[in-house]
């Protein structure tokens, strides 16, 4: 019997990590100009992700315009989410939600995606541990052990997950997807692991909307952390106390 919890790391590895942290501390004290970020940036492809990081996203709703779907299109493109003309069963990782305040009538438009919670309900309920939170805060489905029970979809407060209802062909190599498993936004791990931003963020930036800021919430110096200090922001369903990795400004 294996426990599929990814957080339980073998001791040797923890030791390695401590050694590395110690080395980092030494570097810091030896050369004040060298910062931890550079060391993180240098994560080689054969190094595991580190729990010192936490990937996060800030959505600036004031810069997000109604009718714009650049982020959604980029996501669909990146993950090969071509609809089969059945909106009720087609997968969506990110969607634009329109809001209208029932009292004041003020409207907003903003993207909703997996919120990458620190204490994710989907992770708690998953019987096999297929839903898991990676050390760096990204909530993922290990589709190799997903049995398709859909309990995570019942548990997710954000409707962030989709079930694949039929056979797929011609998947994108970087985003394997197949019938009978559950999936959702994965912050484009395949890109993030290679030091690239998620497709939605890249598209929003390239189109000069600047409504999405991605980065390391665990690092106080990251652009994201600075923005989060600068702009008032909130979490969706903050009443649940999930400490989400996606924050919203302007609603």
């Amino acid at each position, binding site marked *: 019997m294996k426990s599929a919890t990814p957080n339980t790391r073998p001791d040797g590895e923890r030791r390695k990590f401590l050694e590395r942290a110690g080395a980092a501390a030494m570097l810091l004290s030896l050369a004040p100009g060298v910062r931890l970020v550079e060391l993180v940036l240098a994560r080689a492809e054969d190094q*595991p992700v580190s729990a010192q990081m936490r990937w996060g996203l800030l959505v600036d709703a004031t810069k997000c315009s109604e009718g714009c779907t650049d982020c959604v299109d980029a996501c669909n493109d990146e993950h090969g989410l071509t609809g089969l003309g059945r909106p009720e069963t087609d997968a969506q990782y990110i969607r634009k939600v329109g809001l209208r305040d029932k009292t004041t009538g003020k409207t907003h438009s903003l993207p909703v995606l997996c919120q990458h919670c620190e204490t994710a309900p989907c992770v708690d309920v998953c019987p096999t541990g297929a839903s898991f939170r990676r050390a*760096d805060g990204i909530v993922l489905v290990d589709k190799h052990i997903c049995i398709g029970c859909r309990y995570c979809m019942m548990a997710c407060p954000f409707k962030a997950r989709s079930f694949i209802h039929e056979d797929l062909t011609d998947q994108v190599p970087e985003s394997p997807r197949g019938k009978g498993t559950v999936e959702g936004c994965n912050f484009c791990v395949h890109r993030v692991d290679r030091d690239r*931003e998620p497709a939605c963020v890249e598209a929003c930036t390239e189109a000069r909307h600047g409504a999405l800021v991605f980065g390391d919430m665990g690092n106080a110096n990251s652009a994201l952390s600075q923005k989060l200090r600068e702009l008032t922001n909130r979490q969706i369903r903050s009443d649940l106390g999930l400490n989400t990795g996606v924050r919203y400004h302007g609603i």
Partner: protein
Amino acid sequence: MRRRLAAVGLAFIMGAGWSISTPADIPLPAPPKAKGDRCVEPTDLMRRNHMEFLLHQRDETVHRGIRTKKHSLVECLTCHTQTDAAGHYIPINAPGQFCQDCHAYSGVKMDCFECHATKPRNSASVHSKSAAMSGTSPAHLSNLARVVGNRP
């Protein structure tokens, strides 16, 4: 008793030899030739252990974010897919293709290609993003800086 066993064994070996020597009966797998001159590990190690490498890599990548190319399933496609006369890729798990040939022979069933792509991302047929995918676009380089936030 022992003699009888030996006889049975001999008959068995002869039978096996006979069936091997008649390829018309049970054709031996002959996976198509790969591109490149060497596989990611010595060929006979690959022949015997490719599944272990793949399954190990799978957990390393999915749970720990390790992205080495050597045992990555996506990478197998680059060398082991074939193209047809018109230059289009043939799915790697199609009959007679590399990942199907031996498996059909030894009766191995695997579900990997229900999800995993069977052809490399074809630069001609894929989206405009492919320049960015190859990691050479300037946009990509500027991303790097923003993602990890090494601004002052």
